[in-house]
């Protein structure tokens, strides 16, 4: 007679090693886990609240400069190294991990207008108000040696900006015209000009490295091709553009920081309409820098705040300010896309987290899973009014807040006027100009 016995496969319940997790059988029958939407909603609400609770973006302030910080540069190879140039001609190199200045150079007389590092990270270039371009070694001088630049180029005019090529020993300066320099020569290998106004900034495209973008004080943005030694196109905006920044992941996208409080993201192939107009600042935008992931950028404004914008959104997702931070002149997003640095008028460089509520340091796998889950929940329920309200809520200084209100009223008035004009004029005679087109004056071929 056959006797049937209960038998279980030990593989189903015995751990292989002591370190393995115990197998917990789990029943996923939906009837046993009811109310999934309400429960997840509550979780999302909690996650959103916690995000706001833990949002402490400010990490450190690097002080030491004796004048306003005018320019910043990232080290291409080292995450911990940052270079800054001040309005008194002083250049400082900082160590972020120690939060200390490791080197101080009196580089120029007058402003340090621009600073950039070489792609290999062994040296850096500065331009100043004293009409010179100087190349410096990244490492300090040996004992007994004097602090001297590797090369100095004396120019005829003031240089207002500098940027280094991403792969080759070429750099570009701007001032009266855009000059392309070979590092080995004292005269530019090619000068490009279009119009006569001074150019405030020049930037190399990080992907298609022969492309340059510059912005001049006659309200235009000019694109250049280094290889063909010719400007390509010019777009004239309503107001002056202070600087531009190329998207490091999308070759033809760049963002311009404008004086009219807005930022404009352009597709360089179609300059007549910006891809997106980013507005939230209440004063001139002075600097912009892309996250290395190319998904977001940070902008520094004269309104004493910095804002983080997603590339495809017209409104900022984050605003950072502190009581003591004055007009922010320069901003940089670190190469690991985790931090943001900004240099401001009151001589300080501040270090912020790019993600305000992110926990720093190593996460355990469970923490990571929880973080991801919360993130997804927040994303899923982001349109629900309560969650939206909590997630969007930011405390702002009174000056900014009142300005926002004021500008809102002004904008509303303008809109109303436009609508009224449309309403009371002959149909077809007045057309509504979309926001994207409004700020473009002309595109010059």
């Amino acid at each position, binding site marked *: 007679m056959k006797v049937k016995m209960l038998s279980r496969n030990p593989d189903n319940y015995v751990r292989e090693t002591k370190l393995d997790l115990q197998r917990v059988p789990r029943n996923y029958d939906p009837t046993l886990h009811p109310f999934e939407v309400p429960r997840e909603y509550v979780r999302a609400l909690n996650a959103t609240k916690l995000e706001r609770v833990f949002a402490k973006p400010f990490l450190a302030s690097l002080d030491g400069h004796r004048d306003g910080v005018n320019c910043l540069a990232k080290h291409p190879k080292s995450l911990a190294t940052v270079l800054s140039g001040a309005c008194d001609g002083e250049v400082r190199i900082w160590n972020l991990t120690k939060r200390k200045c490791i080197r101080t150079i009196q580089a120029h007389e007058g402003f340090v207008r621009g600073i950039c590092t070489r792609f290999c990270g062994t040296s850096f270039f500065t331009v100043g108000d004293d009409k010179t371009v100087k190349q410096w070694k990244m490492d300090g001088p040996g004992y007994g040696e004097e602090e001297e630049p590797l090369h100095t180029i004396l120019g005829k005019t003031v240089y207002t900006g500098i940027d280094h090529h991403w792969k080759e020993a070429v750099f570009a300066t701007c001032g009266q015209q855009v000059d392309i320099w070979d590092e080995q020569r004292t005269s530019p290998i090619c000068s490009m000009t279009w119009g006569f106004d001074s150019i405030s900034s020049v930037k190399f495209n990080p992907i298609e490295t022969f492309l340059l973008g510059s912005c001049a004080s006659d309200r235009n943005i000019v694109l250049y091709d280094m290889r063909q030694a*010719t400007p390509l196109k010019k777009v004239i905006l309503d107001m002056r553009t202070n600087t531009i920044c190329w998207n490091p992941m999308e070759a033809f996208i760049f963002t311009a920081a404008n004086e009219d409080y807005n930022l404009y993201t352009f597709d360089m192939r179609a300059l007549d309409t910006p891809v997106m107009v980013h507005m939230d600042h209440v004063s001139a935008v002075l600097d912009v820098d892309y996250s290395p992931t190319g998904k977001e950028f940070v902008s520094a404004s004269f309104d004493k705040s910095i804002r983080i914008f997603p590339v495809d959104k017209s409104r900022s997702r984050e605003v950072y300010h502190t009581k003591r931070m004055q007009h922010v002149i320069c901003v940089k997003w670190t190469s*690991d896309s985790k931090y943001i640095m900004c240099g401001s008028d009151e001589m300080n460089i501040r270090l912020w987290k790019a993600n305000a509520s992110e926990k720093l340091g190593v996460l355990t796998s469970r923490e990571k899973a929880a973080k*991801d889950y919360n993130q997804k929940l927040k994303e899923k329920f982001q349109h629900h009014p309560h969650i939206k309200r909590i997630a969007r809520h930011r405390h702002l200084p009174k000056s900014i807040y009142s300005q926002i209100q004021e500008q809102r009223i002004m904008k509303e008035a303008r809109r109303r006027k436009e609508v009224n004009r449309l309403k009371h004029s002959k149909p077809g005679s007045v057309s509504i100009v979309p926001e994207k087109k409004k700020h473009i004056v002309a595109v010059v071929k």
Partner: protein
Amino acid sequence: MSTVRAAESLLALSRQEELEDLPKDYPLSPSEDEGDIDGERKHQKLLEAISSLDGKNRWKLAERSEASLKVSEFNVTSEGSGEKLVLSDLLGPVKTSSSLAAVKKQLNRVRSKKTLELPLNNEEVERIHREVAFNKTSQALSKWEPIILKNRQAEQLVFPLEKEQSAFAPIEHVLSGWKARTPLEHEVFNILHKNKQPVTDPLLTPVEKASLKAMSLEEAKMRRAELQRARALQSYYEARARREKKIKSKKYHKVLKKEKAKKALKDFEKLQKVNPTAALEELEKIEKARMMERMSLKHQNSGKWAKAKAIMAKYDLEARQAMQEQLARNKELTQKLQAASDSEEEKGSVEEEGELLVPDTVNEIQRDADGPNPWMLRNPFSGPKEAKVQDAEQLLEPVAHEASESKEEERPGAKEDILLNTFEERRALRKKSGLSQDAEPLRKQESEDSSSQEVLSELRALSQKLNKANQQSGKQNMTSLRTVLPVQREEPTEAEEEPLLMQRPERAHTMEELEELGKEGCFQNKEVPRPVVEGQQLERNPHNLPGAPKEKKRKEQMIDLQNLLTTKSPSVKSLAVPTTVEELEDEEERHQKQMIKEAFAGDDVIRDFLKEKREAVEASKPKDVDLTLPGWGEWGGVGLKPSAKKRRRFLIKAPEGPPRKDKNLPNVIINEKRNVHAAAHQVRVLPYPFTHHQQFERTIQTPIGSTWNTQRAFQKLTTPRVVTKPGHIIKPIKAEDVGYRSSSRSDLSVVQRNPKQLSTRHKKQLKKNSVN
């Protein structure tokens, strides 16, 4: 803008000139000359255009240089007035006179001279340069579009983008930098070197290499060919087998099976001759298989499949056949093996002897009881009926004899035996045809309606003498047969028996019954066309009665089938019984309702509900607005109402709202008011990426937490869009990363070439471009 236009016209002109310069080598022709003149005119225009370039638009006064027939007072030249001066006219006389060769030459020289191309405005050139360069660059940039699109839509992007290749040094490289130090290592290395073991790649000893080379070309070829052939053959056989397997024809498979069986038999015979012991073993095997089959219920139509088929058998011919086949197989397997033909003869002789010795009936019974069933010995499809009928006849006659001369029987219990026999036979008959089953009850109830029963009755008529009861009933059958038609017509109530008849197919358990079913088609319908059938039957009976009943039955069946197609079945009255049952149920229900009514006599829930609903409907209806002001425009005061006209005028009728959701649901009230408390948590507007609210609701309704999802699914659902590694520098995307070839020349080298040369080279190209 005017300058631009002028420049364009310039370009256009110059192009025309070029075009006209082409047929230079051809001799002069009038058309050519015209072209020349045209050219001159264009030249004139060109000059004008150039002069207009400086901005001042001067009107050049036309000068009169020669006499003309038509001179207008407005200083209009002869241009455009029908009389056109053509060079060919002038040259016509020149051609003829050779003395004017010098002039001709001069003229030719004049013709060949061209005006110099005016260099383009510097600004213009630059503009064209820029345009071309921009087009080129934007084209070059467009290659990034697919990648950017992909990255934007990517579910997850992991930064840094470039993969770090973990470099594994090959063993040889490691070995080359390593030296033997210890004595053991030295020894090992010595041995390795002695045996010429390779240390570096490829790791083959010289011997191995030699052996690799050893196989000659021819050998290798032969071997390859062989292998190829084998492979081809194999594939061929495989294909063939597959093809054969795919053949759906049952006949083909039957034939195949038969062939196989035949072959097996032949083989067996051969084996018998050659190797009797082996044959015996084979035989034993078969015998064993038979035993097993007898033991098992495998082919007894008792399995699940068979039962399912039995249900279907009623309607499905194939199912019936399948069942029959199974039974046939059972028989085949359980059949005792008949040895050689001589043994059969022996058996036959034995039987003959048995016939001599024992009465047939006994023999028959025995055979029916335990011997190999004569039914089974024959083909189940063709034989059994006739055989059975014949058997029955054979059986009946002697039985009848014996019954009549019962006293001559030696055995005392012979009569009982005979009786038994008859019963047995009857049972067999019943089994043979489902008809026989109803024969008995029908006979009992004295209702002879089945035509097949006539056959039985005839059979019985032959065996009347045996059983008195049977005899009587048989007689009745005979008599009733002739009167059936009128009886039927008079008493349709007889049909009430039909439900019982309908049950027959379910009782059909044995194979014979099924066979009958298969042959007759729908059996129960057979009774239906009764009148016609019986009418025919009556006509036929007189002739056929003495004859073979078998034949009659055949014909009858055929007719039945025809009738089945032509006649309609009368309505079945079997509903009578169920209706009574229903009535009973109704009554019960009524009773229950009554009870409930009594219990809740006081409160009228339904009316309350209806009232409530009416109120809800009223409340939800949009109200009319009455804007009448009493006393306005007419007398006012206590007791005075505004006039109907006025009221009508100022009554604003509310538009009818959308139909209520519960309009067509009488027992439901659906509250259409929004829940304010819930609304605070609800999304009011459909968010951007969604196009339909259902889409949005679906995303909300699918949970992503680990409470509702398996670990794997949870991980998949919560993957972050962007992943960055802490402490890693994310470099800008590179062409090499995404598989594009980056430009081989460096930007610097291009710039360092003479830019002027570059621009001159461009010039022509640019011009073309701009023209195009």
